[in-house]
């Protein structure tokens, strides 16, 4: 919960500019950009994520730094578990979503 997880913005949701797909070492999930209203966020940007919300825009070098910090703290597995948990996709596989919810950026 107190982990700051670095992720790369892959795509901003075409229907909702406050949602974006991020990539965290290969895991892709949606995060909320609503707390970064001051910044213009574009695909390719790096952000620090807390509990599913992007909290700050950082440089690529800082993102690498933060990933290393998580690794040496022994928290990288917990961070990935957190990211994989975003969107309840483990609890509700996409096929079980109501139709309107299953079509996000992934499709």
């Amino acid at each position: 919960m107190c982990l700051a997880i670095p992720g790369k913005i892959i795509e901003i949701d075409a229907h909702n500019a406050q949602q974006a797909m991020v990539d965290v070492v290969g895991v892709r999930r949606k995060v909320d950009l609503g707390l970064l209203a001051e910044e213009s966020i574009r695909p390719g940007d790096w952000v620090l994520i807390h509990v599913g919300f992007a909290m700050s825009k950082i440089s690529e070098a800082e993102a690498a730094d933060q990933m290393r910090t998580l690794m040496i703290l022994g928290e990288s597995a917990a961070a990935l578990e957190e990211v994989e948990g975003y969107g309840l996709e483990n609890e509700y596989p996409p096929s079980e979503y109501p139709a309107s919810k299953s079509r996000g950026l992934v499709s």
Partner: protein
Amino acid sequence: MKYVDEFRAPELISKAGEEIRRLADPKHHYRIMEVCGGHTHAIYRFGLKDLLPENVELIHGPGCPVCVLPMGRIDDGLSLTANPEFIFAAFGDMMRVPGTHGSPLEYKARGMDVRIVYSPADALKLARLNPQKHVVFFAIGFETTAPSTALTIIRARAEGLPNFSVFCNHVTIIPAIRAILDSPDMRLDGFVGPGHVSTVIGCRPYEWIAKDQGKPVVVSGFEPLDILQSIVMLLRQLRGGQAIVENQYKRVVPWEGNPAALRAMAEVFELRPYFEWRGLGFISQSALKIRSAYGEWDSEQRFTVPGVRVTDPKAAQCGEVLKGVLKPSQCKLFGRECTPEQPVGALMVSSEGSCAAHYNYSQHRPITIDAAASL
């Protein structure tokens, strides 16, 4: 393991260690508090204590959100699970924290509908997916997580989602520091300031600690070198008779914080007149409650909770450990009745809790040797 090696940058680390030795006045015993549980975890994991001279002592602060939550709040939140129409959603960190009648996980085992979520946004999603149920999100955390809860509540209202509410336990770090400084049995020389909380609140809120209390504050990153550098910066100030707020973690923490996050918090939350902290007692204006404009999404305004107040088990000394008065190993239950597998107190549950950190790391060799051995 390559990362550990790379990171350890042994020359820089030992340089920082030397600098600390050079700066520390041998006639003075320094007591420096690291406020944040993430720092506590890092300090234990890297055995930083062993790099410091005897007279530079690190005191673990109250910055572990699950640790400072009094048991009564957990009981209150869990009391809502008695209604079979309710889903209780909380972060994984909360799941093993004991309440009087068991942890959320034990409630789940007894058949209550308890779910782990990794984001408040997903608790909201649970409510959308389960329109026939009411989802209670058990919110905890300092200013790092409070803005996300706030924005989630704003979204719930915008959507008009009726079957979602938040049981709010968000706390703020500044009043806790004030309470510690006010406590008569505590003498501190300075603070290693929290890293991620500061990305939200910035560095300005610490200025009174320097100005009014004459104690330096250095906001710090989480790597061993960050923490050691912060200690160097603190000792330099102390040596020069200075007390200011410095930012060692500039690469992530802006001086002014995150304005959008602060706005979301101000929109949804107001300060509670007082709130109970484990170990620190009641602290005025130290926690957030949901404003009445958003009352429909506040579990406490919408439903009746018993308002339980329980004291920790008698022999448990979580309070003293949280205040930094006792070391984890000085608690009579430490490592005996209370272990990470069978925690009695919350400090043994979270990886940021000082008891868990002490238990997991202190009997091991320093991490560098472990890393080298496993190559």
